């Protein structure tokens, strides 16, 4: 079996182990607490399967769409801007204070304004998540570019590389590993914000589904929503890892020896 196959098999066993462990923990908690608020895993899984066809699937896809589109937007704006800020000192001196002042403000406080201007639909949710995730990607990328040693840039310049090529061949690849880390962190943030944004003024999305099940006192359905949220998170992590392995192959060479 080739190397990638082995790694993939190892990861699958890891996921299986984690799922078995969590289910056992859950089962134990359900047995010992004996409360209707915490259903058994069997009940929750049964509800997931039962409801997926009905409307859970639709809520899942709506949430996936919102998270993916907003993270992608944040990435496409944050990455280039972060690289430019990291390399062009003059631009950074101007923009950094702006970022530092606005970054710590919880963007959620602007929700009323966002709802006013973008309405109750997808737009306001996507904007809010993008807004928050954008800062994480921007700051990480900028700091990654700052770490690039001047010799590495000199090396490309000495080959005849121009300014654009410094971006293309040095700054972008050098910052990508950190960018992927920030993307992984952003996934957690994005889903947390998603839940918040979907928990009011909407009738679509996993956040809505969970809050609605709660208010209807249907804990098995509520947990079906939680399971789908976990699946959404895992799915996104797998996608990020997949691209990480393609674009930062040089970072993942551990244990690989020539000829083996």
């Amino acid at each position: 079996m080739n190397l990638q196959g082995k790694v993939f098999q190892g990861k699958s066993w890891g996921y299986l182990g984690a799922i078995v462990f969590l289910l056992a923990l859950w089962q134990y908690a359900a047995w010992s607490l004996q409360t209707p608020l915490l259903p058994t895993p069997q009940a929750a899984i049964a509800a997931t399967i039962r409801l997926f066809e009905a409307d859970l699937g639709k809520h899942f896809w709506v949430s996936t769409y919102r998270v993916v589109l907003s993270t992608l937007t944040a990435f496409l704006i944050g990455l280039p801007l972060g690289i430019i800020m990291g390399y062009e000192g003059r631009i950074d001196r101007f923009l950094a204070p702006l970022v530092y002042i606005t970054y710590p403000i919880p963007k959620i406080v602007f929700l009323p304004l966002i709802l006013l201007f973008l309405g109750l639909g997808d737009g306001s949710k996507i904007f809010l998540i993008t807004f928050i995730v954008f800062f994480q990607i921007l700051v990480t990328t900028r700091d990654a570019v700052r770490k690039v040693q001047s010799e590495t840039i000199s090396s490309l310049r000495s080959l005849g590389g121009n300014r654009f090529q410094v971006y293309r061949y040095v700054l972008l690849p050098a910052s990508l590993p950190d960018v992927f880390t920030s993307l992984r962190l952003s996934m957690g943030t994005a889903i947390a914000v998603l839940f918040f944004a979907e928990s009011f003024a909407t009738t679509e999305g996993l956040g809505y589904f969970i809050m609605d099940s709660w208010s209807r006192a249907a804990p098995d359905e509520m947990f079906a929503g939680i399971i789908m949220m976990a699946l959404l998170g895992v799915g996104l992590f797998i996608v990020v890892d997949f691209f990480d392995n393609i674009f930062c192959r040089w970072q993942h060479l551990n244990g690989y020896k020539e000829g083996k």
Partner: protein
Amino acid sequence: MIEVSHCDFIYNQGKSQVKVYDDFNLTIERGESLVLIGPSGCGKSTLLYLLSGLLKPTAGNIKIFSESVKGTRQKTAFILQEYGLFPWLTVEQNVSLGLRVRHTVKRNYKPLVEEMIRKMGLGEVKHNFPSQLSGGQRQRVALARALTLQPDLLLMDEPLSALDALTRERLQGLLLEIWQEQRLTTVLVTHSIEEAVFLGSRILVLLDGRPTKVVGEISNPLVGKPGYRQTEEFFQKTSYVRSLLERGGLDESAR
């Protein structure tokens, strides 16, 4: 001919200004192999950066083959300390990068890159990344990349300093071969007295101090002679270079 005339180089360190070169003059003949030797921080690397066009002299003028240096030059290849390889590119991609940034068409550079990889004995590792190579292999990648540019001037900043003794001698042999085969004008910076005498047709002994001073200039006409390393002349040259370096050190402490 390369002419460095009346060059000053000053850089700002915090609020003070450091004068590395003051009215510095140097001439290098075409086909010469010049070695710069001296203690750390004596401005050897700075001189290479000035010749490469990555740094500009504060005053004065540098002419390479009767053309004034304005920024980097197409036919100058520069191997930086630590080789300047890109860890995210494979051996093959590293070697072809110089030609790629010069917008050479792929089918034109492919054979040249292939040939250089084979010549440097990197065929088996061409899909590996720099982190998977030994120090000697990395140095050969850097050399291959420099030579694909078909330079007329090759600048090297302590290219062999991180290697073990045997690899080092083998690569010194390779450098000598390349220089003799192509009669490239080379400027090499080193810490090693042996290396200086083995590779330099002329050796410039520099002394740190602000500004940098040239304390000795030794011509070494026997360079490249087979078995030179084992001869009496080689030994005499190394002793002479050593004495210049040591005397320089004494002058420094007596001041």
